[in-house]
C-alpha cells in the first residue's frame, strides 16, 4: 500500500481508538495513559505531556509525560490572564514560538525550550479550560503541518471531554457526600428533638418517669429481634419515644393521680392517642407511620382497644409493636396504684394475651430478644439495663422464656393456648 495511505490509516485508527477509549474506559488514569500513547503514537511524537487544570488552584497537574526528563515540574501554576488567553485560543494548537507573551511560558520557558516542546493545545470543554496538551518534535524531524495539527487537536478534544466527564463525576461525588453529611446531621437533630420530646412527656408524669424512653428502647429491641433493617429499627424506636406525646395536653393532675381515676378523667386521658396523632401528623418525619403508631398504640388484636376498636390486620404493624412495648413497660415498672410485677408473671401475661391483645410473632420476638441476651447470644445488655440485673436474672426465667417460645413453635401461634 502507498506510504501516505498507510500513514493516514494509522493516524485515523488512533483517532477512532481514542474516541472509544474516552467513551468506554471506566478507569480514568488508564484512559489518560492509553489516550496519551495513542496521541503520541499517531504521529510518532517523541515527547509531550497531558495536564489537567484545576480552576480553584489555577494549577496544572501533569497526568502523563514522556521524554520530558525527571526535572520537569509535575505541577505548574497558571495565571488568570493565561487562562483567558487559552480560552481565546480555543482548541487551536499554539506554536511555542507564538506563546512567548504568556506569563506561563515566561515562567516555564527553560523547561519548555530545553525539552523541545513545539505545540501547546488548550483543552476547552463548554467554555472551560480543563487542561493542556504539550507536544514535542516528531520522530521524523518534520515540523507539524496543518493536517497534523488538525489531528492532534481532534485527539486533544477527546481527551478534554474525558477530563471534563471526570470533573463532573468528582463534583457529583462531592455533592453526594455533602448531602449525605447534611442528611446525617438532620437525622441527628431529629433524633435529639425526639428525645427531648420524650423527656418532656415523661417529665409531666412523675410516676412513670422514663416511660417514653423505655418504650422507645423496647420497640427498638423488638424490631431488632425481628431482624429489621437499621433504618426501620430507628423508625420504630422514634414511634416508641413519641407514642404518648398526646399526654402533653392532658391535665397533669389526671396523669399524676395516685388513685384510680374516675370515668370523666379516664375519658380525658383516652384522648391522648388521637391528640398525639394530630400533633405528629404535620411534622415531616424521616420514617413513615410515626403518627399512626401514636394513634393506635392502645388498640388490641381482639378489637377491644381504643380509639377506634380496630381488629388485628386493621391495626398498623408499627402500632402493634409500640403497644407491646408500652404494655411490657407498664407491667415491669411501679405504678401509683400497682406495684411492678415479677418477671414470671409478666411472661405468663404475655402468653395469655398473645393473640388477644398482642401479635403472637411480636411476643415471640420480645421473648427471643430477652433469651438471646440472657444466654449470651448477643453482646447487647439493654434488657438488663432497662429492667435491672436482678429482675432479668431471676430464677427460672430462662426455662419460662423457652417454654413460651416452644408454645408458639408447637402451635404456630399462642392464640390457641391463650383462648383455652
Amino acid at each position, binding site marked *: 500500500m502507498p*506510504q501516505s495511505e498507510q500513514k493516514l490509516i494509522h493516524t485515523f485508527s488512533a483517532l477512532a481508538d481514542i474516541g472509544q477509549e474516552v467513551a468506554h474506559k471506566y478507569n480514568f488514569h488508564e484512559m489518560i495513559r*492509553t489516550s496519551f500513547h495513542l496521541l503520541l503514537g499517531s*504521529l510518532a511524537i517523541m*515527547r509531550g505531556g497531558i495536564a489537567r487544570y484545576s480552576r480553584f488552584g489555577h494549577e496544572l497537574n501533569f497526568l502523563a509525560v*514522556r521524554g520530558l526528563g525527571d526535572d520537569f515540574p509535575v505541577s505548574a501554576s497558571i495565571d488568570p490572564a493565561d487562562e483567558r488567553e487559552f480560552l481565546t485560543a480555543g482548541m487551536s494548537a499554539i506554536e511555542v514560538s507564538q506563546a512567548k507573551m504568556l506569563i506561563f511560558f515566561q515562567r516555564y520557558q527553560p523547561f519548555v525550550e530545553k525539552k523541545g516542546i513545539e505545540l501547546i493545545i488548550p483543552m476547552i470543554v463548554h467554555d472551560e479550560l480543563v487542561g493542556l496538551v504539550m507536544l514535542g518534535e516528531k520522530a521524523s*524531524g518534520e515540523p507539524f503541518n496543518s493536517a497534523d495539527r488538525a489531528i492532534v487537536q481532534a485527539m486533544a478534544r477527546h481527551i478534554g471531554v474525558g477530563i471534563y466527564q471526570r470533573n463532573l463525576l468528582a463534583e457529583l461525588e462531592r455533592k453526594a457526600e455533602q448531602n449525605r453529611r447534611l442528611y446525617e446531621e438532620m437525622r441527628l437533630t431529629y433524633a435529639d428533638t425526639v428525645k427531648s420530646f420524650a423527656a418532656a412527656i415523661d417529665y409531666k408524669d412523675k410516676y412513670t418517669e422514663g416511660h417514653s424512653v423505655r418504650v422507645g428502647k423496647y420497640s427498638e429491641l423488638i424490631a431488632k429481634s425481628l431482624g429489621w433493617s437499621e433504618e426501620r429499627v430507628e423508625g420504630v424506636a422514634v414511634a416508641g419515644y413519641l407514642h404518648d406525646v398526646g399526654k402533653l395536653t392532658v391535665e397533669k393532675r389526671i396523669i399524676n393521680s395516685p388513685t384510680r381515676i374516675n370515668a370523666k378523667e379516664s375519658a380525658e386521658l383516652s384522648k391522648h392517642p388521637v391528640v398525639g396523632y394530630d400533633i405528629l401528623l404535620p411534622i415531616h418525619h424521616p420514617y413513615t407511620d410515626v403518627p399512626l403508631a401514636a394513634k393506635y398504640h392502645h388498640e388490641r388484636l381482639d378489637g377491644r382497644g381504643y380509639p377506634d376498636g380496630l381488629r388485628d390486620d386493621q391495626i398498623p404493624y408499627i402500632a402493634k409493636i409500640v403497644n407491646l412495648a408500652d404494655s411490657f413497660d407498664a407491667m415491669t415498672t411501679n405504678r401509683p396504684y400497682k406495684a411492678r410485677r415479677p418477671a414470671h408473671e409478666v411472661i405468663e401475661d404475655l402468653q395469655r394475651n398473645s393473640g388477644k391483645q398482642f401479635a403472637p410473632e411480636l411476643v415471640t420476638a420480645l421473648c427471643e430478644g430477652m433469651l438471646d441476651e440472657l444466654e449470651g447470644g448477643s453482646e447487647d445488655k439493654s434488657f438488663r439495663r432497662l429492667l435491672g440485673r436482678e429482675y432479668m436474672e431471676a430464677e427460672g426465667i430462662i426455662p419460662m422464656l423457652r417454654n413460651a417460645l416452644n408454645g408458639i413453635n408447637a402451635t404456630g401461634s399462642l392464640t390457641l393456648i391463650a383462648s383455652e
Partner: protein
Amino acid sequence: MSITQEADIRREGETAVVYANEYLNKITGEKIERECRDKIAAGCSRLLVSFRDTEIVNSIGISILLGVIDAASGANAEVVFTDVNPDTAHLFETLGLSRHARIVTA
C-alpha cells in the same frame, strides 16, 4: 506467540532482546518500556526488539517503541528492530522511527 502478559525479554551479554508480541499494542506494552529502561540501567548498550510474532503495530505500539528509543538515547544505547515485516517497516519509515532505530526486515 506468547500468551503471557509479562514482557518477553532476555539478556545476552551487552544486548537485551525483547519480543514485542501482540501486547505491544495495548497499555500492557508499557512493561516493555519499563524492562528496557531496567536493562539499560543494568548496563546493556544494545536493545534488540524482535517483531517475529508481531503482525501490525498500532499507535500505542509506536508510542511504546518511542519510549524504548527515549530510554536508549539517554544512555547512548543502540536500538535495533528485527524481523520487521515489510508493512511495518514502511510505517516505521514514514513515521520517522527509522531515524532513531536500525530496522532489519524479516
